[in-house]
């Protein structure tokens, strides 16, 4: 039971990070039809920015982390929107989707060529100590990650629900045409979504890197987790992405530990979220919390 609780906390911690990546992915999809296949690389890259700041320029960790978030907002938010998405959306959704795949390759190989192909250790914000909570030993680092990720999610939810800008953003996500008629500055909201996505990805990157190490090829796993989380939760709902992220994180961790019990070899741990994806697509295609969408005419 104690083991189980430890695994659950660890799962929620990684799951909350996946949720951060999945929320941004969902928001982009809704506001601008940008299905960002480079989302995993968006989470992989900011940690490299921090590494560059620390190791090439000798800056302290906290400053490097802020710089990483800043660089992410500029490059993965503004530049991505202006240089990639804007020119390509005019050609249609498919060229844009293919371009995001190319962007993913570009970032992945760019990180490899510019920094290194090795996996790098990354400092954790929280001390790696175990604390005793009601007889269960829980990693402080994991609790910290969980707390930060949940705080980010809560702040985002508050922003979307309680501020005027947030509500305009939601209106844009639900129906850009109607939002425009209601006087929402749709272009600005879309831009803001890209910035928000980049910031969320950067936070996810800083949180996940002490756990997974920093490696150029991490985007594949992270991206897949984000896609699965978004689809499982219901891609048209922010809370769907949150639930999906947490679920994928927990299932991933439990599958790693209990794979023997359910008769799968631990080498198939990666396949468990995929199985979840397939089950959802088969039996609840709109996602666990999603609404059904009408086919548009």
């Amino acid at each position: 039971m104690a083991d189980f609780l430890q695994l659950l906390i660890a799962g929620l911690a990684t799951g909350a990070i996946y949720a951060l990546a999945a929320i941004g992915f969902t928001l982009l999809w809704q506001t601008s039809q940008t299905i960002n296949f480079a989302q995993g690389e968006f989470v992989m890259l900011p940690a490299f920015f921090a590494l560059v700041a620390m190791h090439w320029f000798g800056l302290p960790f906290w400053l490097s982390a802020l710089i990483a978030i800043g660089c992410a907002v500029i490059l993965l938010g503004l530049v991505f929107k202006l240089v990639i998405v804007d020119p390509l959306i005019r050609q249609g959704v498919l060229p844009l989707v293919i371009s995001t795949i190319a962007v993913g390759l570009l970032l992945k190989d760019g990180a490899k060529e510019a920094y290194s192909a090795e996996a790098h250790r990354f400092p954790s914000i929280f001390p790696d100590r175990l604390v005793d909570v009601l007889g269960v030993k829980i990693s402080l680092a994991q609790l910290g990650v969980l707390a930060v990720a949940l705080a980010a999610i809560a702040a985002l939810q508050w922003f979307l629900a309680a501020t005027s800008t947030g509500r305009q953003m939601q209106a844009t996500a639900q129906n850009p045409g109607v939002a425009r008629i209601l006087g929402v500055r749709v272009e600005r909201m879309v831009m803001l979504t890209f910035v928000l996505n980049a910031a969320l990805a950067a936070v996810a990157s800083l949180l996940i890197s002490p756990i997974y190490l920093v490696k150029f090829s991490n985007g594949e796993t992270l991206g897949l987790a984000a896609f699965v989380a978004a689809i499982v939760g219901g891609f048209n709902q922010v809370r769907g992405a949150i639930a999906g992220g947490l679920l994928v994180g927990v299932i991933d961790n439990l599958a790693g530990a209990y794979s023997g019990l359910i008769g799968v070899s631990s080498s198939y741990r990666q396949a468990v979220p995929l199985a979840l994806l397939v089950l959802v697509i088969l039996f609840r295609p709109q996602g666990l919390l999603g609404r059904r969408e009408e086919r548009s005419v």
Partner: protein
Amino acid sequence: MRSGLAWAAVAVAVLALALAPLGLGRYDVYILTLWLVTAVAALGVNLIVGYAGQETLAQAAFLGIGAYTSALLAKAGVPFGLAFFAAGGISFAIGLAIGFPALRVQKHYLAFVTLAFSVFVWLVIRNEEWLTGGVMGLKDIERPSLFGASLRPHRLFFWFVLAIAAALTFAMWWLVRSPWGRAFTALRENPVRAESLGVNVRRYTLLAFAIGSAYGGFAGALYAPLVEFIDPAPFALGPSLLFLLMVVVGGSGSFAGPFVGAAVAVLLPEWLRFAESYYLLIYAALVILMMAFCPTGLVGLAGRLWSLRRRPARMAEDEGARALGEAKP
């Protein structure tokens, strides 16, 4: 007249290809054969992406399924012809099985499902050592023999692959000019309208995906005896993404696109040896530029330049500029 010329051009191209190995060394013939095999798989991707307007991120996985199927059957003593059709048939059936649930939901779900499938196939190939040899791979895959003569010599094997690739290319040409091909074009340009005209969009899309995947399987059945040793690496997600990008660079929706794209993907890295490590970067950047300025790919670009030369600039028709753009409902 025009189609007569086109046939003549095709005949000349095939003849030139058939004669090419006579002047080339062993390694160059190998690369040329690899180009043909890649082009066959890319033909399948083109059917899915360029004709049916879907995205597949699993062509390398189907290549792997075909390669392991044919290699394992060859080791079990099954004749190549049978193994070849088994590779295509299994890929077709798997294509139906994974395409069916994905296409029920909505556009772009096929991309996610094929993405997941790619990872899954790679895991199976790597983990099921008793069957696939795991990371050690399968060694000493025999090349087939024809009329009692072994096709082990590289030139003979090239001609063998050329003949099969030509047959598969012809079959694809025949398919896209059939009523099915017309339905594929219609459902890419405007699925809602196509559905209202009685076109069962879901079924046609599924068939396009399954047939395209079968081409991946066929290519795999040729790939295994070509390289004579297979391991999981070429069948991972990365190579699947490259298949999609190469078709787009070549010109998706144009019949010659996959051949051009495969040439860029297979032949260019050989010539660009100096740029080896930056190759992927250049390639990815090229794809983005291509999508932004010429979504019809290199074939479309060539067509545009050609018509610019022959006619005043304003007449240069942007044929198929919508090849990838979707009809806005």
